C-alpha cells in the first residue's frame, strides 16, 4: 500500500463569509437598498419618520409637563402632554369613586390577582391545578367580599362606587373566565345530535354574533330589569357582566367548534369504543386535544373582549375610558389645550399594554405548543 499524498487528511479551515455578505453595509444593502425602488421606499420611510417622530417625542416627552408640574405650565402655548393632570387624577382613573380610606382593599385584590396569575402563566412553575383552582374559584369569592364589603366589619361599598381600571379589569376578567365554560357547552351543543339542543345553540350563537355588542349591553341594562319579576333590582355591574359574558360565550363557542372539528373522527370513535359516557369522552379525550388547538383563538378573543369592555361606557358604566372622559370634560382646574389628548393617550397606553402583552403571550404559547408541526 502506498500513501495517498494528494488527499488531505484534514478538512480545510472554513473561510470567513465574503465581505459583501456580512457587516453593516451588507445588511443595509440587503434590507434597505436592494433595488432602486427599495431605495426610494427607504427614503420615503426615513422622511416620514423624520416628519412624524420629532413632534411626537416633543409632545410626549420633551415639551411635556412632568408629573409634578402645575396647570399653568400645561396652559403655556408650546407645552406638550400634561402628565401632571394624569398623575393627579390617577386614583380616580384606577378606582373611580371608591372611598379613599378603603383603597387598600382593591390594592389587595390587584396584588392577589397578580400573585396568582403570574405563576399560572409561567409554564415551569409547578402546582398548576391548585393554582388554577385558587385563581378561578377562591380568588373571585375573596375579591368580591373584599371589594363589596359588608362582612367581617368591612365597610359596605356599593358597586356604583367602583370605577376606573378596577371595573374594566373586573368586567373583562369575569367575561373571559365565565364565557369559557359557557362557550364550550354551546360548542358541544352545536355539535350535538339532538335537533332541539342543536338548533337552540345555533340560534343563540348566530344571533349574538350577528348583532353589535352595544345592542347586547343595551338589552342587558335596559331589558333585563323588565324581564325580572316586579320589585327585583339587578345590580348595574351585574347587568353589564351578563351582557359581556353572553356576548363573549358565543364567540368562544365558535372558536371551540373550530378545535372540535379539527379532532380526527377516530378520536371520537375510539373514545366511544372504550365505553366512556358522553361527558367522560369529552372531558378526557376530546376537549384536552381540541382546547390545545384553540388557545391562540381564545386569547385573541380575550383581547377583543378586553377592548370591548370600553363599550360599557355607552350604557353608563364607569370603566377606565369613562373615568378618563369624565375628567377630561369636567376637571375644570386642569382645563388646557392638551388635557383631553393627554388623558386619552394615558388610557390608550393602559389598554395597549394589557392587549399587547396578551397577544405576545399568545404567540409564546403558540410557539410552545406547535413545536412538533413546524416545517
Amino acid at each position, binding site marked *: 500500500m502506498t500513501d495517498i499524498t494528494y488527499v488531505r487528511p484534514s478538512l480545510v479551515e472554513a473561510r470567513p463569509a465574503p465581505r459583501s455578505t456580512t457587516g453593516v453595509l451588507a445588511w443595509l444593502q440587503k*434590507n434597505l437598498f436592494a*433595488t432602486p425602488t427599495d431605495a426610494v421606499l427607504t427614503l420615503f420611510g426615513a422622511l*416620514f419618520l423624520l416628519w412624524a417622530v420629532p413632534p411626537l417625542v416633543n409632545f410626549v416627552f420633551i415639551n411635556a409637563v412632568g408629573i409634578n408640574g402645575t396647570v399653568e405650565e400645561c396652559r403655556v402655548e408650546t407645552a406638550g402632554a400634561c402628565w401632571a393632570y394624569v398623575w393627579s387624577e390617577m386614583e380616580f382613573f384606577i378606582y373611580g369613586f371608591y372611598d379613599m380610606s378603603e383603597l387598600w382593599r382593591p390594592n389587595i385584590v390587584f396584588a392577589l390577582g397578580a400573585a396568582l396569575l403570574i405563576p399560572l402563566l409561567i409554564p415551569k412553575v409547578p402546582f398548576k391545578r391548585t393554582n388554577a383552582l385558587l385563581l378561578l374559584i377562591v380568588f373571585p369569592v375573596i375579591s368580591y367580599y373584599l371589594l363589596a364589603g359588608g362582612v367581617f366589619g368591612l365597610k359596605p361599598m356599593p358597586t356604583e362606587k367602583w370605577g376606573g381600571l378596577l371595573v374594566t379589569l373586573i368586567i373583562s376578567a369575569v367575561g373571559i373566565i365565565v364565557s369559557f365554560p359557557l362557550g364550550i357547552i354551546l360548542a358541544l351543543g352545536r355539535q350535538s345530535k339532538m*335537533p332541539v339542543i342543536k338548533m337552540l345553540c345555533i340560534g343563540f350563537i348566530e344571533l349574538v354574533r*350577528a348583532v353589535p355588542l352595544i345592542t347586547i349591553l343595551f338589552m342587558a341594562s335596559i331589558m333585563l330589569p323588565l324581564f325580572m319579576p316586579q320589585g327585583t333590582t339587578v345590580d348595574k355591574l351585574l347587568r353589564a357582566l351578563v351582557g359581556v359574558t353572553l356576548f363573549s360565550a358565543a364567540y368562544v363557542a365558535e372558536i371551540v367548534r373550530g378545535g372540535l372539528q379539527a379532532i380526527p373522527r377516530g378520536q371520537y370513535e375510539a373514545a366511544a369504543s372504550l365505553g366512556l359516557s358522553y361527558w367522560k369522552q369529552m372531558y378526557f379525550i376530546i376537549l384536552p386535544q381540541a382546547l390545545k388547538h384553540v388557545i391562540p383563538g381564545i386569547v385573541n378573543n380575550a383581547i377583543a373582549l378586553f377592548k370591548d369592555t370600553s363599550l360599557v361606557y*355607552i350604557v353608563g358604566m364607569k370603566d377606565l*375610558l369613562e373615568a378618563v372622559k369624565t375628567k377630561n370634560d369636567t376637571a375644570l382646574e386642569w382645563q388646557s389645550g392638551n388635557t383631553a*389628548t393627554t388623558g386619552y393617550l394615558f388610557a390608550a397606553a393602559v*389598554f395597549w399594554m394589557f392587549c*399587547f402583552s396578551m397577544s405576545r403571550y399568545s404567540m409564546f404559547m403558540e410557539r410552545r405548543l406547535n413545536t412538533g408541526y413546524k416545517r
Partner: protein
Amino acid sequence: MTTREMGHDAAPRVSFFNDPVIRGIIYQVVVAVILIGFIFWIVGNTAANLAAQNKTNGFDFLWKTAGFDISFALLPWSRASYYWEALLVGITNTLLVAFIGIVFATMLGFTIGVARLSSNFIVARLAAVYIETIRNIPLLLQLFFWYFAVLKTMPAVRQSIALPFDSFINQRGIMVPRPTPDQEFGWVMVAIVVALIVAGVIGGWAARIRTRTGRYPVQIVWPGKLADAVVTFLVAFVALVVLLGVVFPIASFVPVSAIVAAAVALGSLTRYAAIAKAALTFFVAFVLCNALLGFMFSWVPSLMVSLISALIALVLGQVVYSNTANRPPSDARFPLALLVLIIVGVPALVYWLTGATLAFEVPVLERFNFKGGLQLPPEFVALAFGLTIYTASFIAETVRAGIQAVNRGQTEAAQSLGLKDGDRLRLVIVPQAMRVIIPPLTSQYLNLTKNSSLGAAIGYPELFNVFGGTSISQSGRAIECMAIIMVVYLTFSLITSAIMNWYNARVRLVER
C-alpha cells in the same frame, strides 16, 4: 326450531332509561319545556312590568310622527316624519359610513398588509408598528380621540383651515364643494357605465385571445399603442403645466408644455420609448414629491426639498427606464392604456358633446358660517376615519396571513418559471392568497358595519343611535325598537354569510 339467522337480531334489549334514542328525546323534551317555561315567565314579567309603568306595546308606533331632529340624514327628514322613516334614515346612515369605511379600510389595509411583508426593513417595521399600535387600542377610545381631542379642538369657523380643492376644516366638520350636475350630466353617467362595460368586454376578449394564442390580437395592439401615446401626452402635459406653472412661474408655459408633452408622447412610440417614459416619470414624480415633501417639511428651505424630490424622481425614472428597456414586445402587453382611454375618454367626449356642466358649489365663508358646499359633520368624519384606521389594521393582518398561507413552493415554482416579481405576485400568489383572504375579509367588513354602532357614543345618527337611543326615549317602545335593530343587523349578517357561502363554493379547490 329455535335457530335464527345471524344479523336479523334486534338490538340487545337495554333498560328503557339507558336507550340513547329515548334518552335523547327525554333530554330534548326537558330542555324544550324549561325553555318554554322560561319564555313564558319572562313574557309574563315583562307584561306585568310594562303594565305597572303604564306602557303600551306593539309596532303601531312605526306609523306615528317621530317629532325629533336628526342632525345628518341622506333621506328627507323633518320633525313631522314617521318612525319608519327614522329607521330608514338610521339604516342609510349606517350603510353610508360602513361603505366609506370599507372602501378606504380595504385600500389602506391591503397596502399595509403587503408592506408588512416587504423585504424593506423600514417599510416592514413601519407597517408592524401601525398594526400593533392600532389594533391593541379600543375603537371607542380611538373614536373619542379623533372626535374630542382632534376634531373638536379644530379652530372656530372664522379661523377655518383651508384644505386643497376649496375644502375647509373647522370645529363644525369638513366643508367640501357640492357637485351640482345639470340635466345633461345624466348622459355622462350613462356614458361612464357604457364605457366601463365596453372596456370590460374588450379586456376580457383580449385576455381570452392571449390565453389561446399567446399574444394579444393585432386589433388591440395598435389602438393600444396609440392610446398609450395619448395617455402619455395627457399625463405629461398636466405634469408639465403644474411643474412650469408652480415651480418656475413663466408666463407662456402652456404652449411650451404642449410641445414638450407631444415630444414625449411621440418618443414613447419610437425606440426611444424608454427615455421618453423615464422623462415622464421624472416630471410626475418630481411634481408629486415636491408638493408632498413641501407640505410635510414646510420649515425646510424649498430648494432643499426640490433637490431631494429631484433625487427621488431621478431614481424612479431610472427604474422606469430599465423596466421599459427590458419590457416584452407590445403584443404581449395588456392594453391597459386603451381601456383607461375608453373609460375616461368616452364620458369626457359625451360631456363635451352634450354641453353638460358639472359645476361645484364652493363653500364660502360668510359672517358666521359657511354658505354653500357640502358639510360633513365632525361625527361622520371621526367615525369614518376611526373605523377606517381601526379596521385597516385587521385587514392588514388578514392580508398578511393570506399571502403567507400560500405555499413557499409556489413562489419558488413561479421564480423558476422565470416570472418577474410583479407577474409572480399577480398571476401566482395573489389568486391563491385571495382564496384565503376573502372569508376573513368579509367578516372584517361585517365587523366594521357592526362597529359603526359606536357612532352612537359620539353622536353620529346611525341605526343604533336613531332607533335605539332617540326613538326609544321618544316612544318608550324599548323591546320593539331593539328587536327591529337586531333584525336589521341579523339581515346584514345573513346576507353576508350567504354571499360568502356562494363564494366559498365557487373558489373551493377542486381536487381529484
